């Protein structure tokens, strides 16, 4: 009982009301209500084309829903853009890595843009955490797709954002890398952050009941 009261006293980090999404005249989901608290790890499930990416993009504010609202700290995300974006790290399908810049330059730019503290030593350390030691000064155009993804994931190690929204973060990452990322997620939610992700794999280092699930059913129309 006391636990319930405690959770009801702290407002949810993100809450979603009556979310409806329509893409190409197809109803992806209808009247979705979600609450995500600090310390949650949320896995969005569903077959291909069920709207997982659309949901994550709506949560991050990149896409506008057909109907419904997204709140951050009980404020509409469109009305608290700056605060929300300070606390948001979104990694989509596209890594956001420029081929004309080196791995280190890419990471440094992305971190600075997000406002995360960084310097040359830091960058090198962070890149080694995602197994990119020795590639710091290679132009990203000479690196593989998996390495691009790791450059973008490296930001997680330095992020000060509370909310991580990750679309298929494990694509093109090896087993060891996945384990390292899961440990990172654990540390993050322990510190009062939350992780919202899509993946086709099970999260192995988490207890099944620890992971909140949102299942999107494909609605045939």
């Amino acid at each position, binding site marked *: 009982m006391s636990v319930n009261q405690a959770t009801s006293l702290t407002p949810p980090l993100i809450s979603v009301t009556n979310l409806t999404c329509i893409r190409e005249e197809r109803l992806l989901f209808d009247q979705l209500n979600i609450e995500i608290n600090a310390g949650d790890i949320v896995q969005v499930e569903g077959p291909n084309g069920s709207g997982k990416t659309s949901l994550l993009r709506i949560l991050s504010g*990149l896409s506008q829903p057909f109907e419904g609202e997204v709140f951050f700290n009980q404020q509409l995300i469109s009305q608290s853009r700056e605060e929300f974006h300070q606390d*948001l790290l979104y990694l989509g*399908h596209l890594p*956001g*890595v*420029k081929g*004309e810049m080196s791995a280190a330059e890419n990471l440094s730019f992305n971190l600075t*843009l*997000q406002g995360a503290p960084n310097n040359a030593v830091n960058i090198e350390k962070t890149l080694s955490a995602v197994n990119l030691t020795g590639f710091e000064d290679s132009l990203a155009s000479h690196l593989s797709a998996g390495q691009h993804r790791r450059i973008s994931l490296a930001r997680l190690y330095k992020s000060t954002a509370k909310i991580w929204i990750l679309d298929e973060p494990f694509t093109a990452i090896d087993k060891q890398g996945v384990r390292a990322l899961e440990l990172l997620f654990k540390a993050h939610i322990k510190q009062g952050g939350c992780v919202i992700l899509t993946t086709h794999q099970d999260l192995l280092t988490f207890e099944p009941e620890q992971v909140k699930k949102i299942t999107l059913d494909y609605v045939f129309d």
Partner: protein
Amino acid sequence: MSIANLSYRAVFSLVLKRDLTIAMRHKDDIINPLLFFVIVVTLFPLGIGPEAQTLSRIAPGIIWVAALLSTLLSLDRLFKSDHDDGSLEQMLLSPHPVFILVLAKIVAHWLITGLPLILIAPLLAVLLHLNEQSYGALMLTLLLGTPVLSLLGAIGVGLTVGIKKGGVLLSLLVLPLYIPVLIFATSAIDTAALGLPYSGQLAIIAALFIGSLTLAPFAVGAALKVSTN
């Protein structure tokens, strides 16, 4: 939060520096529109005939139309690659105001494409026998006018960046907006050729520049939000 200490100016120079670095490592983006500019201008004497009098009469129009077209050609690079590799999303999701980021990218675009155009224009003016009194007016109109082209063009790119084969559509959207700049710039150069003062036309172009500088970044920001939706 630590973010607050990143001032507008710091964000602006961060993005500007990044775009210039990328352009310097990818020099085609600078050279190709410039070559296009030169080639288009060379085509006119071949098509019209080499009489110096005719050429000097139409030189302002030719140089300015060629400048419009080569700007149009280079506009695609402004947001396209950032859109395709996901950097644009990340910029829109940063806590900084979108108009600062957009303005930095537009300034970078002008430095990469507009400035070289201005530098090479006197050479083309020689080829077209432009009236000697008009050189100053040509340079001044280009200096004030090409930023307007970059700013207005950015709105068009912002709207079409998410569309496959948006290139032709872009020209349909942007070229009508370039008409006032074209009219006042060529008229200033013509007036200068007659030895008359052309500060009036220049003032209007300056007003267009100030107007688009203040309004365009917001329109571009709104357009990009639609395009990344």
